[in-house]
């Protein structure tokens, strides 16, 4: 049996006192790719932010276990050190801090937390160059300030570069495909696929089937009103693409008759 990576039990969370997640359950094992789809406002991005530990989101009830550790007890940076990574839907611009400085600091913080030796500046430069080639990023991206004046596609690619550098075990991609043209999507998907391995878990949060042509999920979940309403294999994504989400909102008996 595959090793469990993430166990979410009956998770409810709110932002500004407004409940968004309402009893969410999900199990992810090592080596699995899960796609979470659903209409706007279903709570998909909230799920990612709650798991990453965003301070604006309040967990009301439920449990989350990540590799046997109680995730909800951990600071956001501790979650990152433990191997969790979220690719932001809207990556934040950090003026005055270079991409390279940012990544070097982040990687060494993680290595320090895991009792590994820190990388020196030349070691890190060499390491970063290789990762940037993988993402087809020009060297000047290292010296540019984090996401500052990046195009939408560049920001998303930069997120995947960060993933490649930090080498996480559980990755959540929050609408990484939105705002990407087809070439950028291919590069992003290639970066993710290169990184994916049997000891890793991946959560793809997306509106569209499109990304799933490039990164093949093992499971597809439909999220509505703060919880999963239907789960299936890759064929469910195609069904959603054809039928939309409306049919899932109708009562179950109507659905079977349809």
């Amino acid at each position, binding site marked *: 049996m595959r090793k469990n990576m993430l166990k979410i039990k009956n998770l409810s969370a709110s932002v500004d006192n407004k409940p968004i997640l309402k009893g969410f359950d999900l199990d992810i094992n090592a080596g699995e790719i899960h796609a979470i789809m659903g209409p706007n406002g279903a709570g998909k991005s909230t799920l990612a932010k709650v798991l*990453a*530990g*965003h*301070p*604006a989101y309040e967990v009301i009830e439920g449990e989350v276990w990540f590799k046997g550790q109680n995730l909800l007890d951990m*600071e*956001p*940076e501790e*979650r*990152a*050190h433990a191997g969790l*990574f*979220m690719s*932001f839907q809207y*990556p*934040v611009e*950090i*003026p*005055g*801090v270079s991409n390279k*400085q*940012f*990544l070097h*600091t*982040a*990687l060494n*913080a*993680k290595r320090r*937390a895991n009792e590994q030796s820190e990388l020196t500046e030349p070691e890190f430069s060499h390491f970063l160059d290789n990762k940037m080639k993988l993402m087809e990023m020009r060297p000047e991206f290292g010296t540019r*300030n984090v996401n500052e004046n990046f195009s939408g596609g560049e920001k998303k690619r930069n997120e995947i570069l*960060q993933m490649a550098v*930090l080498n996480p075990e559980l990755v959540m991609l929050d609408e990484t495909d939105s705002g990407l043209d087809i070439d950028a999507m291919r590069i992003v998907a290639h970066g993710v696929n290169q990184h994916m391995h049997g000891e890793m878990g991946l959560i793809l949060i997306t509106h569209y089937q499109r990304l799933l042509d490039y990164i093949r999920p093992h499971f597809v979940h439909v999220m509505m009103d703060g919880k999963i309403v239907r789960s299936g294999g890759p064929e469910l994504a195609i069904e959603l693409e054809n039928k939309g989400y409306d049919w899932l909102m109708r009562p179950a008996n109507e659905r079977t008759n349809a």
Partner: protein
Amino acid sequence: MAAEQAMFSDYKYGFVTNVETDTLPKGLNEEIICAISAKKNEPPFLIEFRLKAYERWLKSEEPVWANVKYPPINFQDITYYSAPKKKPILNDLSEVDPEVLRTFERLGIPLDEQKKLSNVAVDMVFDSVSIGTTFKKKLEDAGVVLCSISEAMHTHPDLVKKYLGSVVPIGDNYFATLNSAVFTDGSFVYIPKGVHCPMELSTYFRINDRESGQFERTLIIAEENSYVSYLEGCTAPAYDNNQLHAAVVELIALDNAQIKYATVQNWYSGNPKTGEGGIFNFVTKRGRCAGVNSKISWTQVEVGAAITWKYPSCILQGDNSVGEFYSVALTNGHMQADTGTKMIHLGKNTRSTIVSKGIAADLSSNSYRGLVKVAPRAAGARNYTQCDSMLVGDNCSANTFPYIEAGNASCEVEHEASTSKMNEEQLFYFQSRGITKEDAVNMIVNGFCKDVIKELPLEFAAEAQKLLAIKLENSVG
């Protein structure tokens, strides 16, 4: 004492030294001024200078245009002279009251030459008087004079007479005029012709007494083809009353001379919750690029004082002279800062650069106020101004008041400004990548300020970075 200790927690320089002082009675009148002068055994020209200033001050009015609010200052309730009783013998620090020496050690400024800062000569001013200067010998060998201004009056009276008040005239502004009347001590620096000062020079100002104001006067003269880099630092105990600090700094750079003047100002800024106490920092700093190709650079990191009113300026008189102003002003708690610069272009092809970074947190108010003035005869003058503000939280304010007076059609004046906000999303972004919030604040602030920090002498740049991060620790998230 309890209240003082409570405030002490966030400001590690807030302690008080118990030392016997020689103090004049509170209040300001001709008698007090003559008494200050007599204490210092001053030459007659200085008594005249002081009394003339006092007369002007009585007729002048406190400025009200700055974007700061404070209750009226009772100038009769201030002690204008307070000095440690043990008479310092400047060549032998062992004669200084050990309590005072310990104070400077607690501040991280060891006077003991064994432990001295590497390659930085330090002059220390405790309340009103200079208590000692390190590296005397090495400086003397180079012909450089670094001493207290009280000492310079006797050892270099001609230079003091020639230059004192030559950049900031006696009646310049309300607080400078007050300083001219009552200044007690400060530093004097003289770099002879052709000398590149062999080390960083530094003055450390410490207010200790509860009731005393600090009115120091600094005069730096760089003769032709000379170079000097000078740094001042300031701290004060945490008292719940306000204290006035009205200093004047005058710099003179002759032909091809260069002066770099850096300040790390960390006066007690008052109780961050109530706004009670703190230093009123009303300072006039001005440099005159008197000679051709001369250069004056001001670098300031202002992180303390309840109220700051300060515009280190350059008068670019010599042709091709250069003025620079690099500033980080950080306000938190209830602090108010109205700071900036004036670049007065008089000579041909004069150039100036202004880089101002304002960081406002909590309930504070942070204003940049700057004047770029190009005289009709300053053909080819150029200025570049960059003025950035960063807000931390929702209750602070940042303002920019740039004034440009271009009197010559051939001049070029550029102004760029930006406002950004350090927010929860940025900090979360760092954290989600494994970087702690403290390190994130540090990186964001230092990234924001790096164009200014890199202008500081190396020995102090790292300290300044740490100071900025510590100041914001409690303001973010």
